[in-house]
């Protein structure tokens, strides 16, 4: 293990702890807005975690999974916002 892998191994528990805390808020959020907001933060952190894991395991192809995650969560935001305003799903 060189410098990069050792330092990333020190920083990994920060990301994992925050993902667990976001997950708790996503399950027990009082309204649907809180749940979607928590899933929003969780997915962006998951994208960052995947890029960092690609650096840790020396697998550059893991970067491909980060872009669809970032695009998917934006479409989820827009769908939920449209559903809350109009009470119908978009075509």
């Amino acid at each position, binding site marked *: 293990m060189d410098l990069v892998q050792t330092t990333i191994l020190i920083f990994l528990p*920060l990301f994992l702890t*925050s993902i667990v805390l976001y997950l708790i808020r996503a399950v027990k959020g009082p309204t649907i807005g809180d749940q979607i907001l928590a899933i929003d933060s969780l997915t*962006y952190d998951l994208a960052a975690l995947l890029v960092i894991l690609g650096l840790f395991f020396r697998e*550059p192809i893991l970067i491909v999974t980060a872009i669809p995650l*970032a695009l998917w969560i934006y479409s989820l935001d827009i769908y939920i916002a449209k559903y809350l305003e109009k009470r119908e799903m978009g075509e």
Partner: protein
Amino acid sequence: MLKDIIIYLGLALIGLGGLSDLIASIGMHRFKNFYLRLHATTVGTIWGAVFPIIGASLIAFVYDELGSYRYLMGGAGLVTSLIILLLAPAGSHALARAVHRSRIVKVSPCIHDELDPELCGDKI
């Protein structure tokens, strides 16, 4: 020399991102209602996702152990950070607007709500 500087810079950005993620996820539990939790989401997306991906991309450009695909990882990482930088504020703004217009959550603490005066919760 330059390689060492870039690697230290990238690792510092990754550490800053992890710390900001932890702060944002604690804030997700400390704030009281939906509109206040938007602050925590801002910290968690921009500081906690955009900056670590930029740092990882900077490392990937000069990290020889990744093999011949390291330029793909660096370039795609920069594109991902740009996508998140553009889409995260737009998504959370649309969500906040929809929640306010559908009258799910009361604004609290509130001084005056010009958009919908009935939605004003407990005053300061």
